[in-house]
């Protein structure tokens, strides 16, 4: 076996057996997309799918890290093991990053049931790092019951976390917007649970009431479909339909409302297990596999054998001698001729 393969086996087996140092090293390999990481993920994947992956997203300063810290306390009190992947943005200019989410999660230094890992987004747009899903897979394999994926502070359209997580929590702060904000397409649409945090601030109740009114109304037939109003065979039941998120209020800094949030997470999980979220799992698999396919394609176009041809094609597009669609078809055709897999 290759050195990377042997190293991967050792790291993967040690991480699964509870070796936290090995787990941390494996996560580094995953972030760096090394051959070791790929071999380890191949080995670990069949044993995963047990953990509940929960995405936590929302605007900068809404209280994501504080809520994660409060959730850790609640999950530990219930005797379950919890891991956190906390993503902060990388600088588009220097590639550096300041990862500050641990500041709020310090209380568990000697608790083996808690594992916190910060990740820089490394240029990936969408709220997560490109490797966050793989990191969650590794933590799942290491036996954590709950894996919390905390995104960078998001705006309106960083919805990627919804594809990565079983349950997506969107955090709102009081008075962040009116009812029109609540009915815009995007982030709020992918929420399974909406949390209005900073519940001790004035306006929290009103914000929650507005969100409830706007997100859970049953005005459209598609929403009615989500309620099961149409028979399974009915064409209207098969259309894409909006979620009907629960709206909760928390005060993460005091823990107020956090037990109710954990209960809501558990309820969403059981509902998913009963098949409601089967489509979501398939969508996640598709996103994961297609991301790898596109990465592999890119590698092959840059590979020694094809790089000059690729470059010539790109140059032709740059000089407007060739249109990009024809160029793409040519590149794809060049791959299928005479290049065996791998």
């Amino acid at each position, binding site marked *: 076996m290759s050195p990377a393969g042997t*190293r991967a086996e050792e790291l993967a087996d040690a991480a699964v057996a509870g070796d936290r*140092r090995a787990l941390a090293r494996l996560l580094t390999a995953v972030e760096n997309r090394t051959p070791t990481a790929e071999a380890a993920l191949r080995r670990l994947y069949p044993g995963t799918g047990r953990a509940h992956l929960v995405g936590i997203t929302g605007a900068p300063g809404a209280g994501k890290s504080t809520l994660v810290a409060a959730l850790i306390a609640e999950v530990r009190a219930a005797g379950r093991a919890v891991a956190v992947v906390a993503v902060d943005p990388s600088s588009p200019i220097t590639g550096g990053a300041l990862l500050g989410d641990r500041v709020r999660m310090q209380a568990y230094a000697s608790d083996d049931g808690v594992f916190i890992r*910060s990740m820089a987004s490394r240029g990936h747009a969408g709220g997560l790092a490109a490797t966050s899903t793989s990191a969650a897979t590794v933590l799942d394999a290491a036996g954590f019951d709950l894996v919390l994926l905390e995104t960078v502070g998001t705006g309106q359209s960083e919805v990627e976390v919804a594809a990565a997580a079983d349950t997506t929590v969107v955090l709102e702060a009081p008075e962040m917007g009116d009812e029109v904000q609540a009915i815009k397409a995007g982030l709020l649409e992918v929420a399974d649970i909406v949390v209005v945090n900073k519940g001790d601030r004035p306006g929290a109740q009103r914000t929650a009431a507005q969100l409830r009114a706007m997100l859970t109304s049953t005005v459209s037939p598609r929403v009615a479909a989500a309620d099961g109003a149409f028979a399974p065979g009915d064409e209207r039941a098969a259309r894409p339909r909006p979620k009907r998120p629960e709206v909760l209020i928390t005060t993460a800094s005091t823990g107020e409302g956090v037990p109710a949030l954990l209960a809501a997470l558990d309820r969403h999980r059981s509902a998913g297990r009963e098949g409601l979220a089967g489509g979501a799992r398939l969508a996640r698999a598709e996103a994961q596999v297609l991301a790898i396919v596109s990465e592999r394609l890119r590698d092959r176009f840059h590979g020694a054998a094809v790089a000059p041809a690729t470059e010539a094609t790109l140059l032709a597009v740059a000089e407007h001698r060739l249109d990009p669609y024809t160029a793409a078809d040519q590149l794809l055709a060049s791959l299928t001729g005479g290049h065996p897999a791998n």
Partner: protein
Amino acid sequence: MSERPIKILIAKPGLDGHDRGAKVLARGLRDEGFEVVYTGLRQTPEMIATAALQEDVDVVGLSILSGAHMTLLPKVTRLLRERGLDDVLVTAGGIIPDDDIPALEEAGVAAVFGPGTTIAEVAAYIRSHVRPPEA
């Protein structure tokens, strides 16, 4: 596969509440292209060792102004060694008298940066002393 940025933990052990220096350093190192994990004030050696292990950092930078460096810094290096993190580069900054530096080096602190050290100097030291990443 792109080159991995060096990952640094900046922590403040002990009880002094002055973290402006640590924050300025963390931000400066970010601008130098490092991935900096900032953990904030009042860290116990336990917390620092756990964070270094979970984050798999290459460097632990400790900022201390309280005068307790002779107690706290050797404790951090000992905990790091006990957890198998002997290849992590440990540096310190803050108010540390020159006379104490040999003993700290003996305890495993690789470098002590006093007042007046520039961020560029710290960055250059880190770049030339960190272990190469594994495949």
